[in-house]
């Protein structure tokens, strides 16, 4: 799947994460998190896993995390990806 435009999803409220995604020549992930000292690796894994799931090879991703659960991070990532591509969600493949 190809990232063709910028998109943003989520909020900066507690237990949420704001994720910005944009076209880029490589995978470029920046993470800032209120719980980064403990969970930065786990957050990065959710981001990487989701990119792999959607076969995304090039994207700039900026994550501003406020203590979001893994399921929230994943939901925000999937929504950001779908907003930044022109492809419709295939529920059959996703769930």
């Amino acid at each position, binding site marked *: 799947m190809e990232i063709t435009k910028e998109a943003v999803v989520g909020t900066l409220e507690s*237990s949420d994460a704001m994720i910005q995604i944009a076209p880029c020549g490589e995978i470029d992930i920046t993470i800032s998190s209120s719980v980064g000292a403990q969970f930065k690796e786990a957050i990065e894994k959710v981001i990487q896993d989701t990119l792999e799931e959607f076969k995304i090879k090039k994207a700039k991703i900026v994550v501003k995390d406020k203590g979001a659960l893994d399921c929230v991070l994943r939901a925000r990532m999937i929504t950001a990806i779908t907003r930044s591509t022109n492809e419709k969600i295939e*529920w059959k493949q996703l*769930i």
Partner: protein
Amino acid sequence: METANIKLRRSMLFVPGSNAAMISNSFIYKPDSVMFDLEDSVALREKDSARMLVSQALQHPFYKDIEKVVRVNALDSDFGVDDLNAVVRSGTDVVRLPKTDSAQDVLDMEKVIEDIEKDCNREVGSTKMLAAVESALGILNAKEIAFSSPRLIGIALGAEDYVKDLKTERSPDGIELLFARSTILHAARAAGIMAFDTVFSDANDEETFLKEAALIKQLGFDGKSLVNPRQIELLHNLYAPTQKEVDFAKKVIEASDEAVQKGSGVVSLNGKMVDAPIIERAQLVLQRAKLSGVREL
């Protein structure tokens, strides 16, 4: 002595589907059902993100042991079919239909749900439905709605749209809702399903909330939609039986068990015949006591 495992639905806690914090923690308040909302509480531009949040929450182990209801958008909106695809595949227990005006509304949504269940190999019929009636037309069609599908677990009243339709507004004593509440309740009971009351939106006004909750309990409602976790304990306590009710219910069940052991078709207690509705009522009282404890008078 065994009590029947009746699913209690005293409290259905509304959780806005776009609110990540509430999605992340609403299970801790232990309502009987969590009701994720994809409809009125979600802004148009966030329908996609809310749908995805709810889809992920439905699959999360945090919500494994709690009944999950999702209020989806109407089928004739731009969002209804996508909502159903997301939540049925993610394993919601119940789909709540908004603004149900007719039996056909239920049948139309049931068809889409069934197609999705077949497509994702879920057992056909495993996704239950709850019809929310929110208009004068819906109230007048309540009986047909209640009988429309074996998937229906109940009918709920959505009062905000209903009073707008009546060209009135809600009052503390709820006189404007009496016909709708009575009609829904009779339709539900005639069809053997549950009846749920509307939300009381001022979470700070506990006194009026309790008056309304006492009224709908007395009318016969199984429970109520809630907008704030603080209302859960108040409601559960109200629905908890008294010690006197529990003692009587135990005697009824003991008499019933004894009659079964003796092979007798007739149950009697203190010389009086106990029939099936009294036994069912006793089971419900004990189930409520098990979950809510015993209420002090």
